[in-house]
């Protein structure tokens, strides 16, 4: 009998969303008993690729082979039947159920019409002992720590007979101890003959457990390397690629007074994870401070704590020398802060209101826009028209409902609102996510214009290119910590990539 060596093979897989290629001609070969890392930046197309394998959507081109037989994977149930299991980043567990109930959900062993709980519990227990996944089958999921919940997810996949396990960013939500444990579990799993695809962007994890690593960038296949023949430097470089930092016209760096000063900021989540860990930074007038890092390393909490949208545990934030303690969000905006949030739909806009109504979202209460009771509708409309022109917002009129507009135009509405408020400090997060090149250039030019006018800018982005071309300084954030600072004119992608992946200089 010939032993199958390739458990999963992808050939030239492509997936398009509209005109945008999320995956383009990607090749991947997973061997039996191997841990194969899939490395790439946010939005590189890793999750899209694995969703294709799990049957969540169909590829637009290419072939999938499972155990060397070409197969069209119809849906997740089909994938499970083929022995593919997925451990999602966001657990899909029923909190009120016990561990056993969650694991057997949908595949309950039955006697007649009754669930055979006894045999189920035993089966779960056996599985957990076999793979070293220590879980009490009878405890309720809501009482379990995040790391243990993840084990339940793994057990769920194993219970369904998975031989190929896909881990989607499994360490993102774990504490360092839990990460160590998880990596050990993975090793046990492959020792028992399972194969693992590990989606991650953390280099140290790859180096410590993976056998092979495939790198994808911007939806395209870059290279597959053997871990024993490579090092973190090479991986980092492969991940970020050669960025041609496009030189934007800007005045020489000439920092003025400190506008924003953060000292020793700490924030701990309810489950005890450190979200912000002793963060200190400063931004001066006339400079762009870039915050580099992979999503989920504390960036959103950092900016939300600056505007007092969330409360931090300890630490101090000063804007123009004044502590922000006890100030309302509105106070902070009035002290000269503008904030372009990462999530335009959730925070930045009221999608069911029109352009001009969204343009006054922050300042509607000011005398400028109302006479104490009534909104100055005419003036608001006229201003809306002006700003649409000034910021190149393309829509039928200022009365167009924002929901139906393109992402770029929506972002311009936010930008128009925040920039017109003449800030001294502009906090801007992921300003160009999902936008086309025209909109990106427009927004970049606006940021530079403000910098040249002396505005202090805190730019949080996951795009290295954007950070390198706009920033005067770059701080790297990893796991809630500022782990280093680089000069964009004096760094390279490898250095940045390594730091973003948690490797110090």
């Amino acid at each position, binding site marked *: 009998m010939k032993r199958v060596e390739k458990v999963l093979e992808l050939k030239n897989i492509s997936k398009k969303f509209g005109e945008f290629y999320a995956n383009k001609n990607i090749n991947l070969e997973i061997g039996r008993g191997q841990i194969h890392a899939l490395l790439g930046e946010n939005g590189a197309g890793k999750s899209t690729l694995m969703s294709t394998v799990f049957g969540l959507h169909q590829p637009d081109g290419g072939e999938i082979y499972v155990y060397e037989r070409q197969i069209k994977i119809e849906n997740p149930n089909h994938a499970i039947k083929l022995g593919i299991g997925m451990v999602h980043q966001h657990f899909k567990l029923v909190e009120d159920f016990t561990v056993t109930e969650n694991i057997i959900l949908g595949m309950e062993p039955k006697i007649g019409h009754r669930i055979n709980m006894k045999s189920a519990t035993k089966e779960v227990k056996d599985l957990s002992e076999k793979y070293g996944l220590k879980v009490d089958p009878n405890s309720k999921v809501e009482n379990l720590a995040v790391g243990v919940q993840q084990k339940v997810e793994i057990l769920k996949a194993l219970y369904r007979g998975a031989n190929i396990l896909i881990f989607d960013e499994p360490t993102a939500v774990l504490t360092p101890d839990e990460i160590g444990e998880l990596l050990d579990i993975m090793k046990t799993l492959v020792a028992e003959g399972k194969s693992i695809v590990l989606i991650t962007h953390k280099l140290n994890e790859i180096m410590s457990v993976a056998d092979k690593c495939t790198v994808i960038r911007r939806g395209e296949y870059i290279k597959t390397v053997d871990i024993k023949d490579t090092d973190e430097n090479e991986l980092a470089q492969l991940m970020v690629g050669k960025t041609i930092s496009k030189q934007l016209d800007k005045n020489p760096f000439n920092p003025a007074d400190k506008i924003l000063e953060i000292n020793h900021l700490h924030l701990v989540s309810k489950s005890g994870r450190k979200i912000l860990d002793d963060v200190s930074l400063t931004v001066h007038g006339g400079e762009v401070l870039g915050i580099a890092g992979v999503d989920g390393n504390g960036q959103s909490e950092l900016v939300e704590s600056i505007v007092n949208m969330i409360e931090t545990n300890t630490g101090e934030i000063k804007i123009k020398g004044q502590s922000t303690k006890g100030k309302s969000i509105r106070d902070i905006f009035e002290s000269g802060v503008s904030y372009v949030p990462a999530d335009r739909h959730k925070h*930045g806009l009221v999608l069911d209101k029109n352009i001009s109504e969204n343009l006054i979202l922050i300042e509607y209460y000011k005398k400028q*826009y109302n006479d104490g009771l009534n909104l100055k509708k005419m003036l608001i409309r006229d201003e809306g028209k002006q700003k649409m022109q000034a910021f190149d917002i393309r829509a039928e009129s200022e009365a167009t409902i924002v929901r139906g507009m393109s992402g770029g135009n929506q972002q311009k509405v936010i930008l128009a609102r925040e920039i017109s408020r003449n800030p001294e400090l502009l906090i801007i997060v992921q300003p160009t996510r999902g936008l086309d090149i025209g909109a990106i250039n427009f927004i970049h030019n606006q940021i530079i214009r403000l910098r040249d006018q002396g505005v202090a800018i805190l730019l949080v982005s996951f795009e290295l290119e954007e950070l390198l071309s706009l920033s005067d300084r770059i701080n790297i954030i990893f796991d809630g910590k500022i782990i280093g600072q680089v000069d964009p004119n004096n760094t390279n992608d490898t250095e940045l990539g390594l730091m973003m992946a948690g490797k110090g200089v």
Partner: protein
Amino acid sequence: MNAVAKHMKNRNILVPILATIIALVFGAIIMLIAGYNPVIAYQSLLNKVFGSAYDIGEVIRAIIPLLLSGFAVALANKAGLLNIGVDGQITIGAVASLLVGTLVDFPPIIHGFTALTVGVIAGGLWGVLIAYLKTRFTINEVISSIMLNYVALYLSHMLIRGIVPQEGSQRSALIQDSASISLNSLSELLNGARVHWGLFITPLIIFGFYYFFNKTRYGYETEVVGLNNHAAHYAGIKVNRIITRTMFISGAIGGLIGVFDTLGVYKYMAISTSTSGVGFDGVAIALLGGNTTIGTTLSGVLIGVLKYGSQGMQFGAGVPSEIIGMIISLIIFFVAAPGLVKKLLPNMEHTKKEVQ
């Protein structure tokens, strides 16, 4: 192109109108099956509503609480809240105005006005209680408001029995004449129909609703909170404060309903075994009216007419008034499931074209 856009725009208004027609037709079919004459039934319904000066006065009396309840619910909806506790706010408003109306000695009009104000504030505070439970302890307002309905009911029993009982009957003592807010001379013109200050105050509330949301900055921020409370929080709007304020106004409108019933209609408050249910009618009316000024007004009038007219149907055609309850439920059903009605729309369009 233009016509299509127009069509799409009208479609949302068409749904409730069609829902109403379909429901009436359904009602007619059911009457036929049950052996009643739907023609006579609907005629007697209309006759009951517009038949005499008294009936016109009384139908207005019947519509006022439904309108107010609809707007109380719509207001809360606009802020993203489902206030199904209007019944409780009605009860609290009623009992508060009852106490002022019976226990205090004031000259006429001033007495009525004072009792009214106290009732309105009491209803508002009852709403604030719901808001407090939501903002402070994150208790869902649907649950707290429906539970507080019972608290309000039994509290009213306690207060009536303990403070203003009427010996030998299941109701409170009568309010003093000075506290009455009836419009006596108009009432005489209408053969005794129980019309009261609500005749003037209700239109003011409706206009206030329109003005609040279409003109004022307070309406604007309320809507922002309702549409996207995350964005509201980001924009520096104090979401909890808006929720509290909205529930106060919503509860105050609810309280007003109770005040009108107590000071304008009954002149006493009954120890009833359940709350009036007007608050739940309000939920239906706001839904039917899509939380808009004109829509809520029209649906409040429609439901009021149907409810009041149902007595005429029973009298004139022997049709049990449950049929009207069924028709109202069907209207709500079709509006809540617009897919059903919309499926019919293109067909109608189609047949029209064929005829041409």
